[in-house]
């Protein structure tokens, strides 16, 4: 199947399998989602946002685990909250580490398979092999590491052969090799025409597997589109770089003359440089320091965390 085509509104895609319409969720006084609308189609979509942005709440609403206080969710035209047959096509890998006690990986996956009326026992073995847990399949899952538990949950989702697969921070706890394997798996599932929605708060990670990115901050949709559009949206905002150096006033004077520099603030023991072109600054700064024999002690992006970028994005 062809990758998801984005409509004129980047929040929506043509041929959507999952549609979120004006969804609001609140817990007492805390608003977790506020009037969020978007859609997801075949391929891998990264759901990106800082911690506490509302990603998990959105995924729980998508899978019917919580009822939106306002708005609606549709998966293949069904509301998973009202129509349990939606779960024949929908699977979730939640972020929670909790697993049932006294159950082996094979027993747990077989249990999920049975509930979905998956009659073929080979599917269980395939799911175990896909997440590389065949060797420990008869060990109790409550004794597994965080990464292994994560893979068991992925296997539980895969065994149901879902058309829509929702994964909440699935790479948490995975070692680099498993991380690479899981990313490869997400890509493969997306290429098979499944709708794969993967949440993460790490932009670089999402870029490795997602065709499309939906950014959520403070319970609202901040941006949506392909990686380039998101990067451009982020790059379009001024970034702040802390520079600690000898003779910082001389360095400030030199930096202010650069095209890439938008402003320089001189503090007690450091400079804060504002720029929209961090790449150009990264090249020019050491050159300027070398030419003026200024020693650089520290160069650090002040708002390089995703949260900082998101704050800029929604300001």
């Amino acid at each position, binding site marked *: 199947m062809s990758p998801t085509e984005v409509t004129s509104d980047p929040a929506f895609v043509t041929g959507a399998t999952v549609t979120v319409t004006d969804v609001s969720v609140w817990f007492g006084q805390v608003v977790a989602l506020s009037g969020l609308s978007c859609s997801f189609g075949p391929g891998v979509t990264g759901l990106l946002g800082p911690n506490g942005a509302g990603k998990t709440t959105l995924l*729980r609403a998508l899978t019917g685990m919580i009822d939106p206080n306002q708005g609606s969710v549709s998966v293949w035209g069904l509301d998973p909250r009202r129509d349990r047959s939606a779960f024949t096509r929908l699977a979730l890998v939640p972020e*929670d580490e909790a697993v049932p006690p006294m159950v082996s990986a094979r027993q747990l996956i077989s249990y999920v398979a*049975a509930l979905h009326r998956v009659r073929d026992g080979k599917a269980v073995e395939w799911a175990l092999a896909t997440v590389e847990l065949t060797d420990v399949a008869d060990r109790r899952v409550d004794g597994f590491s965080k990464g292994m538990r994560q893979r068991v949950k992925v296997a*539980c989702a895969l065994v149901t052969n879902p058309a829509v697969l929702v994964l909440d921070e699935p790479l948490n706890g995975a070692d680099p090799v498993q991380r690479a394997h899981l990313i490869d798996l997400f890509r493969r599932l997306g290429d098979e025409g499944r709708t794969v929605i993967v949440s993460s708060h790490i932009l670089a990670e999402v870029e490795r597997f997602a065709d499309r990115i939906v950014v959520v901050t403070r319970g609202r949709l901040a941006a949506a589109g392909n990686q380039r559009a998101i990067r451009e949206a982020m790059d379009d905002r001024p970034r702040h770089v802390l520079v600690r150096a000898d003779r910082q006033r001389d360095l400030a004077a030199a930096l202010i003359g650069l095209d890439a520099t938008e402003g320089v603030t001189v503090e007690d023991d450091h400079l804060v440089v504002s720029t929209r072109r961090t790449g150009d600054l990264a090249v020019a700064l050491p050159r300027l320091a070398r030419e003026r024999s200024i020693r650089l002690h520290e160069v650090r992006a002040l708002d390089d965390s995703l949260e900082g970028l998101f704050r800029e994005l929604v300001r």
Partner: protein
Amino acid sequence: MSSVSRRSPTRVSSPAVALLVHALRSCLPPRRLGAVLFPCVGAVVFGLLAVAVSDSPDRAFVRVATTGIFGIAVPVAALVIGDAVLGAEIRAGTFHFTWLSPVSARLIIVTRWAAGTMVALVTIVPATAVAALVAGSPSNALPAALAAAVGASSYVALFIAVGAVTRRSTVWSLAIVFFVERLLGSALTGIAQISPTWESRAVFLSFANDVPTSLVRTGIPEGTSAIVRLAVISVVLLGVASWRLGHLRLSGASD
């Protein structure tokens, strides 16, 4: 990622069997099993206490059983079992493995109740019969087991419903048993009529031998009527639990 093993394919059972087996497993963790067995031992100890009562063995056992076994041991055992098969799973954040499936809420609840009842049938029910035997009242062993079976079954339904309604299921269950049933039920016949404690006690007293008339409570169903009443209570509670399960807000273990 890796090749499929040469192991023969895993046998996948039907949803009902899978649900039943999964619920039975939830009672197996050592601490949970210990908590189930503790009131069973308590029931047998109550049987031993009856030996110390200066009355005929039958009358002594009936006196001890109505208060100790049907007022404490059976509700506590059923509470631990009823909580294990649903409430504990929801609290632990593992219920999504079951809930995110096309299986109906009704089937989930009925299989959980069936599993809980099965566990009760092999734990607290034989314990009450053993209590009668150690009390020297073998003729009351069968009535005690029958009353414990229907009482525990009804209690499991009650605690499943509580587990579906609230996350603090243990606290609420204890409150229902000791404040609503024991305290209010003692004074108000209307509450006793829908109370598993009082109804299971009525079942026991109807079929037991040598029952002191002072123990028989008027105004509530007795004998088979009490059994039918307990069945109706169970069905209503399971209906409430099924409805509630469909409206559950699963927000994970941490919330």
